[in-house]
């Protein structure tokens, strides 16, 4: 029996300022140590000022993960020395006087399996250590405090995962959920980080730290399961410890045992008074919270008759749903969903491509309407879509420039089919033995029509002419 639990750190990247000062939460574009102030570098005499928007965003995450939320929250100091930590303590939350973290006892279901959320807490991100030559063995380590004080939400699960695949599914759902909430942009480097803990039957819990990506986490979990199982098989005890993921060697190495664990001397952060969360706070946030992914999916299926698989794909990505929601009406919804999931996803599949894309929701609705009213074929539409993404030009001028309009009617298609059948008489002769020749012929016809013939209609007419089904 394998038990895996996760600790996920999510930066609230969409906030304007850091958790306790007015420096930017988006620290990524700054020169080293320029996004700092007396508060976030812990100068003597500075005091933290709590960013209330961070509490709101964290409350939304808690609600979205079906957590219980307390009536008031408190902050604590976690004391330890580390050069990336300007005050040598981290302001975080801690459930010692009952539940004073922003969320607890939540759950989320993945493929019928319930994963319980133990706790959700708000805390500050430390700065970043830069090892010269990117190895910890270097002589020189530099510190960049631009990140120090960035708002983080830590999500701690119960050890409910039975295998790394469930972990992956969970993390995928979590990524979609967080971006759908508009609290974080998980595609930013370092915005979402996960540590895991693993135990196998007959062994103790082992924590894995220093995992850079979700992909590495999966590998680290696999490695750790194998390592622990082989220890148990050989009768060697699995000790409770923290292990580091070594990305170069693709193994975990012991970092410290439980006995060496630091005592963080948690106590209340007196500089931040308890924060009362009124029922109005929750009601207001419920109103502000965007529609959940599941609710969007169901709406797409029932209201517009969009196929379940298409709806599933469409609803899970906020980038696409935002486009869809703005572009669609009752008539063209299905067509727009179709354009997004069959063609657009191939054009803007990375963060960079999305940032560069010039496509607007107007483009999408125009394109869908043109398809519906038979002004453009689906294959030409794909060409037009790529052009829109690249140039941002309106559909009408793209159609003119690229000569994508003038969809052929049945009689014109019929004429072209006749031409092709004459030219390809050899192929036609084989049609009885080789039915797939039909596709070859369609290809030829399409080439000749420059994509201006409707493929379904073309196939229909062609089959009739050949007398095949």
């Amino acid at each position, binding site marked *: 029996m394998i038990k895996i639990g996760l600790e996920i750190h999510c930066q609230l990247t969409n906030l304007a300022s850091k958790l306790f000062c007015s420096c930017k939460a988006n620290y990524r574009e700054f020169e080293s140590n320029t996004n700092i102030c007396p508060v976030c570098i812990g100068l003597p005499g500075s005091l933290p000022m709590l960013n209330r928007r961070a509490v709101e965003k964290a409350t939304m995450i808690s609600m979205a993960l079906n957590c219980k939320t307390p009536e008031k929250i408190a902050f604590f100091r976690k004391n330890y*020395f580390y050069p990336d930590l300007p*005050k040598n303590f981290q302001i975080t939350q801690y459930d010692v006087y009952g539940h004073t973290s922003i969320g607890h006892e939540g759950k989320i279901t993945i493929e019928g399996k319930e994963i319980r959320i133990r706790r959700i807490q708000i805390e500050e991100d430390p700065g970043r250590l830069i090892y010269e030559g990117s190895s910890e063995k270097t002589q020189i380590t530099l510190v960049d405090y631009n990140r120090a004080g960035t708002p983080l939400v830590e999500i701690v699960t119960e050890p409910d995962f039975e295998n790394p695949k469930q972990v992956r599914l969970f993390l995928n759902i979590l990524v979609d959920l967080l971006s759908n909430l508009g609290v974080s942009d998980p595609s930013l480097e370092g915005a979402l980080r996960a540590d895991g803990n693993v135990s196998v039957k007959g062994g103790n819990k082992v924590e894995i730290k220093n995992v850079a990506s979700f992909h590495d986490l999966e590998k680290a979990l696999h490695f750790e399961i194998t390592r622990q199982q082989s220890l148990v098989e050989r009768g060697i005890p699995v000790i409770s410890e923290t292990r580091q993921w070594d990305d170069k060697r693709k193994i975990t190495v012991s970092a410290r045992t439980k006995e060496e664990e630091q005592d963080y*001397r*948690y106590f209340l952060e007196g500089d931040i008074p308890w924060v009362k969360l009124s029922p109005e706070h929750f009601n207001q946030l419920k109103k502000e919270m965007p529609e959940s992914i599941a609710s969007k999916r169901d709406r797409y299926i029932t209201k517009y008759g969009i196929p379940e698989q298409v709806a599933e794909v469409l609803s899970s990505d906020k980038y696409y749903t935002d486009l869809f929601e703005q572009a669609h009406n009752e008539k063209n919804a299905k067509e727009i969903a179709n354009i997004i999931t069959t063609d657009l996803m191939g054009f803007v599949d990375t963060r960079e491509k999305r940032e560069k894309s010039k496509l607007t929701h107007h483009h999408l609705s125009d394109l869908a309407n043109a398809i519906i009213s038979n002004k453009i074929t689906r294959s030409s539409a794909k060409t037009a879509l790529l052009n829109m993404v690249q140039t941002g030009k309106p559909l009408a001028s793209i159609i003119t420039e690229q000569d994508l309009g003038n969809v052929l009617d049945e009689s014109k298609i019929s004429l072209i089919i006749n031409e092709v059948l004459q030219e390809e008489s050899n192929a036609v002769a084989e049609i009885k033995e080789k039915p797939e020749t039909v596709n070859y012929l369609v290809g030829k016809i399409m080439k000749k029509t420059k994509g201006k013939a409707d493929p379904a209609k073309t196939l229909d007419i062609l089959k009739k002419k050949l007398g095949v089904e």
Partner: protein
Amino acid sequence: MNLRISALKYVEEIKNGNITTEEFISKTIERIQKVDSKLHAYLSLNDKAIEQARVVDKKIKSKDGGACMGMPISIKDNICVKGTKTTCASKMLENFVSPYDATVVSRLKEQDAIIVGKTNLDEFAMGFTTEFSAFGPSKNPWNTEYVPGGSSGGSAVAVSALECIASLGSDTGGSVRNPASFCSIVGLKPTYGLISRYGLISYSNSIEQIGPMARTVEDVAFMLNIIAGIDSHDNTTVDNQKQDYLKEIDAGVNGKKIGIIKEMTQEGVDKQVSSATNKAISNFEKLGASIEEISLDMVKYSVAAYYTITATEAGSNLARYDNLRYGYDFDLEGYEFNSYISKARRNFGPEVTRRMILGGFVPSAGHAGRYFLKAMKVKSKLTSEINEALKKVDMLLSPTVPVLPFKFGEKIDDPIALFLVDINTVTANLTGKPAISVPFEISNGLPIGIQLLGKPLHDKQLLQAAYALQNTVKLPEVPI
């Protein structure tokens, strides 16, 4: 020109054109140069003070002067003043130049106060004699063989010896009131949250406050008017509705109920202090107040709780002094981080080191239940006790310090004496209440102060009572 004048009188004299800011600041600096080699109230001086005075004089001429009118004010060296060294009297921060002003300092500057210098203290405000200053102690101007009290000893000496008109100290367990009492000046520890702590270098942040120190109660009220109130840099500040603490300061105490804290006035109290206390009580009665004895059972545990809580918070607050970002000259190359940390932090003095070791122990996983959490319980019980008492009476009275000022070296290693020095002052900090020390008697050349402790955010009523008490006595002038 008399350097002894009060803040209120100073403002009047400037307004009437009898003196200029430049004259007064120059005289003050001359005074500092004359007496401070003996007293060591200051750790550093503002060499631009006269220049700044000229600017203020110009503003005053065009009727544009702020409320302080160029008044010379000193600031305890654990409060940040932009562009000046803020050392906390520690080797650890020997070279730390603050890049920003504490909120209290910017409020004073806005009102055209002139910061003449930074005053001495026990290192990081831990102590009650200034003997723990890394740069040498301050001397009591009433008798330089005696300690001035602490930790805001430098501030008390500067005010008492006419080296400034008023000063800002900080009070974590009596650090404003204790030296005020020992140097025969007025010192207020306001309600927790009344004055912004932004820019005050934290020692025990959940209980400490900046406090004004001056030669009269009305001067303290004047200072409070300028520095008190909500601050967008300190989450723990409260809105005081811009209260005017000077208005109706002469309201008197007729009909007020004053409680005498049994645990602070009987056992261990010096004879002279006891008799001064009784005299203060009878003076209040003559002014129409009624007196009632109050017993606070938790007071006997208060000093232990105080040291446990302050050590815990100090251990955390002072952790940032790792000399990586600022501090003193130290070559950090060639060390592994942990050995670097322990090396770099050796510049803390003995008392700070003791309290940080204690602070690492009392809240630790295996011992928190026996020490830190118990101390927190004492704090909360003491608070309920005092809240109950303040339902019955308007304020509580005791001597500020149960013992007379003592000589250097006399009590530094005596734990019982340590207990007696702190016992009457820590309660106000642990419970967040305002408390003030008023000079009341000079006994054989040594000052005795009386402490009044009031209801939260009733700092004004406390000042009114202190003013009434102050006016029942006429004290001799400082002999220096």
